[in-house]
């Protein structure tokens, strides 16, 4: 819980990792390049006091995570989004199993998500059921641009994917997090393409589709789809750190998202350990759209910030919110320019 000026903010960090990129676990130059690329993201957008030594960044401890996320990081809950990368790291980078061990130790703070790849066919379906039985999954993280054998990626619209999504619905795995961003294999298909989310969201209205990184650099395509599909969400990981060194750009992106999506479909994620939630949350709560941009984008109200930081995730993941952190029923939440989909906001 974060408290500022008498307001309680229920915080759910929807995008964290517990990875091992130690030299011992790094299998090849790709693994080496991958972790250094992540490290540059940390060095690029963090305040200097939040930049770690590379050695710690490669492999941090359970104590580091608990300290950074919960003890100083204000999170009431945090959600692991696994990234396997088995070709780069001997024991995998950030697997459900590795994440799950921690989740099991802190069952009232940590949620572990699973993953699937529809190209695994029937055995993959069985594996998803098994994964669910073991971890009681409430969400999955998907990488549609991953190369596998002769396949150059997959789409949520592929026939095989329908079976997996149907199984998710049947098992109660309601939250489908999709990474739309750079791929690591030499593919020439457009890995940012968000068009498949559109169809899947229509076909599975009972599932929530959270597009991580809000589809940057295809923000316009993403917004367009999200306008039409009420079960599509924007994950703020990678976007929110802009708040420190590039606040005007952050204002623009959050302004666009609020215009097109409305305030109930934008969710916070730190992408820990790339960035730590403490400074992101403090800065976000203090943040306001710069005055000269308010004519275009309006202002960020406390209610909007409370939803983004945790209340929306609480709805998606059925988390109990203490009374002090709930929105008063009659509080007008809006404040931003009424977009095409902001019927509920008092603009």
């Amino acid at each position, binding site marked *: 819980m974060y408290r500022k000026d008498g307001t309680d903010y229920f915080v759910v960090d929807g995008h964290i990792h517990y990875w091992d990129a130690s030299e011992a676990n790094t299998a090849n130059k790709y693994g080496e390049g991958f972790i250094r690329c992540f490290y*540059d993201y940390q060095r690029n957008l963090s305040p200097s006091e939040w930049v770690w030594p590379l050695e710690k960044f490669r492999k941090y401890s359970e104590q580091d995570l608990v300290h950074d996320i919960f003890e100083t990081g204000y999170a009431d809950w945090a959600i692991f989004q696994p990234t396997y990368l088995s070709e780069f790291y001997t024991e995998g980078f950030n697997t459900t199993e590795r994440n799950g061990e921690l989740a099991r130790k802190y069952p009232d703070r940590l949620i572990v998500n699973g993953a699937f790849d529809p190209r695994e066919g029937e055995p993959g379906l069985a594996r998803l059921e098994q994964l669910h039985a073991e971890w009681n999954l409430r969400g999955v993280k998907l990488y549609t641009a991953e190369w596998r054998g002769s396949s150059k990626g997959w789409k949520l619209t592929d026939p095989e994917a329908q079976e997996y999504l149907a199984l998710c619905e049947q098992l109660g795995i309601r939250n489908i997090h999709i990474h739309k961003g750079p791929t690591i*294999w030499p593919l*020439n*298909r457009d890995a940012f393409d968000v068009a498949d989310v559109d169809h899947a969201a229509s076909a599975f209205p009972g599932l929530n589709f959270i597009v991580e990184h809000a589809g940057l650099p295809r923000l316009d395509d993403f917004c367009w789809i999200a306008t039409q599909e009420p079960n599509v969400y924007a994950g703020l990981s990678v*976007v929110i750190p802009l708040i420190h060194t590039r606040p005007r*750009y952050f204002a623009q992106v959050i302004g666009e998202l609020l215009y097109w999506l409305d305030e109930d479909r934008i969710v916070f994620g730190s992408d820990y350990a790339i960035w730590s939630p403490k400074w992101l949350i403090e800065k976000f709560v203090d943040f306001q759209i710069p005055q000269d941009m308010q004519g275009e984008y309006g202002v960020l109200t406390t209610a909007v910030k409370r939803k983004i930081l945790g209340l929306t995730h609480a709805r998606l993941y059925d988390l109990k919110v203490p009374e002090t952190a709930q929105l008063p029923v009659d509080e007008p939440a809006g404040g931003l320019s009424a977009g095409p989909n902001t019927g509920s906001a008092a603009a």
Partner: protein
Amino acid sequence: MTAAVSVAVDRVTAVNAALATVLDPELDRPITDLGFVRSVSVAADGSVAAALRLPTYFCAPNFAWLMVEDARRALATLDWAPSCTVVLEDHFASEEINEGVACGRDFADAFPGLADGEAMAQLRATFLRKGHLAAQGRLGKRLLERGWTLQQLSEAALQDLPERLTVTLRRRRALLGLPTGPGTPLFADEEGRAVPAAALEWHLRRARTAGVGISANTEVCEGLLAARYGPGGTAGPERGEVAP
């Protein structure tokens, strides 16, 4: 300055000018502005070499390929250069890209089994269209602030504005194969058709969002380049090494 040095300096200038025509497709900006050209050199016999670098080791190889290929094509237009080489440094696919582009292969041949050919042209067009839309967004905002009405905007043609305001617009249209004549509409859809006044507000909304996406992404990339190569990373190419 001796005549030989003067020629050499002119040649380096010409090399940089040629590279300035190469866009990062995703960021819609010249690679010279972005600091992606690490060095250029012109040998005594006029052979040209350029070294490119990118914000991350894992920058998408398809975009990397397009930049290296475009750079090589741009340098090939220098008729005094007997040969030109473009090398991408510090990238996970440097080897395949450098060799593939140098040998005139296409992307799919350079990555057998991992890529298919026609998608590259599509990818390029997708991002050019975004750049074209974003340019209209910037222009529309500027004109509305100066008191133009939507009706006036919808009726305006390229010739109604000073050329300097429509440089990007015309360049993107030329690359997309759309008409760029003086009488063509200022605000146009993907096919080059004029956007009617009633649809213009919507058109400019989407254009604004496209522009925000591109510029926010550019901020991230510029910062990554600086984190990787030092704060001077985006200050432009190093001075070319001039052969005596």
